[in-house]
């Protein structure tokens, strides 16, 4: 398999993208639509812990939080998934049980991707064997920047094959790409190679996700759908910390792709501190005033 670059690559105008992305942030989301949006955002979170110091104990606590976001508030959804390193997949799978919360595992020498291709495939098989429902791989940015598009394409395709029935999220690490044209190119390569989701960032590099980059990727998803009829999911990750930000992202999804993407099957937030800010806003909408952060649990 190899990636055949289209005759003329899609170019992106930076000024135009920044302007359009800014426009979504001026939408005013009030009352009922705010509560609805916040609950939707909550249900789209991939609650994440990706640290060298992760332990089964820490992961078990995070998994509990994933199922019990704020028990005193009736009718809350759970988050979409818990995202961990491959070594923690089994623990997470066991603690989440039949809750419906998925386990996502990073893979392919996350976060740098600087390893041999056969090891990345082995790692992916290991994660899937441990029970990962979803695999978050990183692309080889070095290969992309040096122009070896076929290498990037082939690697994604072979990791996809190793995923079996688990869904594959492909991380572009946009903070390491040079410009918006490359974000678009990396999105196109990933989708052609079999990505089920495209994802902005590892969260280990700054800048992580932002609205302009996410917009370019959503537009790539739209164009791919128009061409092939295949739906691809989107996951901005890192840097999304406030409830307000999450609503802006949802406005962008609604206005770029529409209703069918407004579910956790097709849109995710990779975030760890976002959930509590959303919870605080939801409780404020219900009770009329802000509660102390001490009332929102940290796991």
């Amino acid at each position: 398999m190899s990636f055949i670059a289209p005759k003329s690559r899609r170019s992106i105008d930076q000024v135009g993208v920044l302007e359009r992305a800014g426009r979504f942030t001026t939408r005013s989301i009030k009352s009922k639509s705010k509560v609805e949006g916040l609950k939707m955002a909550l249900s789209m979170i991939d609650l994440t812990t990706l640290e060298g110091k992760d332990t089964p104990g820490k992961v078990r606590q995070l998994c509990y939080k994933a199922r019990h976001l704020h028990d005193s508030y009736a009718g809350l959804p759970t988050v979409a998934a818990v995202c961990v390193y491959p070594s923690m997949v089994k623990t997470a799978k066991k603690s989440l049980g039949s809750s419906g919360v998925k386990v996502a595992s990073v893979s392919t020498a996350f976060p740098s991707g600087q390893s041999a291709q056969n090891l990345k495939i082995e790692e992916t098989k290991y994660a899937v064997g441990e029970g990962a429902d979803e695999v978050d791989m990183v692309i080889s940015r070095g290969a992309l920047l040096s122009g070896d598009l076929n290498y990037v394409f082939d690697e994604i395709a072979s990791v996809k094959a190793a995923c079996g029935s688990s869904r594959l999220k492909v991380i572009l690490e946009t903070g390491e790409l040079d410009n918006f044209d490359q974000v678009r190119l990396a999105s196109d390569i990933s989708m052609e190679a079999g990505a089920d989701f495209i994802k902005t960032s590892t969260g280990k590099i700054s800048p992580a996700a932002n609205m302009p980059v996410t917009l370019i990727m959503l537009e790539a998803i739209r164009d791919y759908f128009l061409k092939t009829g295949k739906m691809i999911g989107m996951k901005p990750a890192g840097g999304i910390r406030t409830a307000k930000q999450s609503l802006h992202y949802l406005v962008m999804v609604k206005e770029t792709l529409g209703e069918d993407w407004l579910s956790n099957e097709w849109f995710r937030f990779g975030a760890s501190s976002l959930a509590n800010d959303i919870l605080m806003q939801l409780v404020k909408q219900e009770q009329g005033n802000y509660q102390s952060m001490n009332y929102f649990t940290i796991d």
Partner: protein
Amino acid sequence: MSKKSKNLEPNTGWDFDPAPEKVPVEIKAQYDLFIDGKWVKATSKKFFNTINPATEEKLSEISEASEKDVDLAVKAAAKAFGSWSKLPGKERAKYIYRIARILQERAREFAVLETMDGGKPIRESRDVDVPLAAAHFFYHAGWADKLEYAFPGLKPKPIGVAGQIIPWNFPLLMAAWKIAPAIACGNTVVLKPAETTSLTALRLAEVFEEAGLPPGVVNIITGAGSTGAALVNHPGIQKIAFTGSTEVGKVIRRSVAGSGKKLTLELGGKAANIVFEDAAIDQAVEGIVNGIYFNQGHVCCAGSRLFVQESVREEVLQKLKFRMRSLILGDPLDKNTDVGAINSAEQLKTIQHYLSLGKKEGLEMYQNAGGTPKKGFWCQPTLFEDVAQSSVIAQEEIFGPVLAIQTFRTIDEVIQKANNTPYGLSAGVWTDKGSKIFNLTSELKAGVVWANTYNKFDPTSPFGGYKESGFGREGGIHGLAAYLNLEG
């Protein structure tokens, strides 16, 4: 694991609740004329209604200035000219800075009033009209004491009394465009706003009072065409600045011929917005939408003729329609509204006339579904596909949210077609290739050419037209020249 979607449709699911701007704005039952720093009754004793075009509700009654009132205003301006023109530039600047700051402080109030009186979405009046109006005062305040540096070797002198007539599409902004350079250069002003949108100009007079601007420096008289004619023909006027239709512009030019009055005209347009196959298509689509649906298309420099290279016609059309469907039409005071109300019943009639003409010509018309509110004047964003240069839709200024789409094959063809119009106010070019941009900016006969963007305005940038789009520039150093005598 991807599944076939039922639907890729923007703006579906998760409906936004209404989010109206709630700042209360006091509107008087009746407004008098602002002459010589005082609010005076019109001698005609006549009033006309001003309404909210989104609801058809009456907002207030506006005085109709008679010839006699115009005479009083011009005399007040002539009297004020004596001391105002002799005031050191830095002193004039202090007043103008003060006006700019007060405008900023009262920005929300002005935005709401502009939206109620004119029908434009609050998003635009809040984010474009009012901030830009303040920016024009700030910019020109800075020039007031530096005019000799602007024109080295010349001795710039104010002209005298400027009669200014402005349109209804950007009522406050056009007032700022006209008044700021005039008074910065030491002239005095009699300004007449359009009859459907007088409220923000009258509120601006309150700002002048608050800023302590000396009486008579700016006089605001309200009324319709006959008031404007009286102003144009008044012998005490040394300069006429008009923004409006080409038809009226021609009448004005005829009437001032031989009178010695200086004249600048900013008139109609039928801009070509040109999309090449190598353009960033998604951003070009944004620019097309912004070019024609901004302010319901009530924009003289609107990109009303879209030229698309044939190889990308399908993609552009598909994405454009998709984007149109994400535009929210409705209550202009709602912060989420993208497309507001048509300014007046009369203008709506004009637009509808062109829509039926287009249909009669057999053109393919596309319009957003979803209907329009029952009360008020509304027109859904509209486009006509595969329009020929010979079609009336491609030739005449519609001044509404109506886009004529033409295709082209080569760069020479599109340059010829873009220039094949009596107008020449603005144009847009969308391409990834810098050389193409430079080529087109010199070939297109238009006062403003935007590259990979559209409808960008800045007080430092001169604005004005070629051919029947008028002459003279507003903004920048060029705009100052229109308010000065520069004879050595």
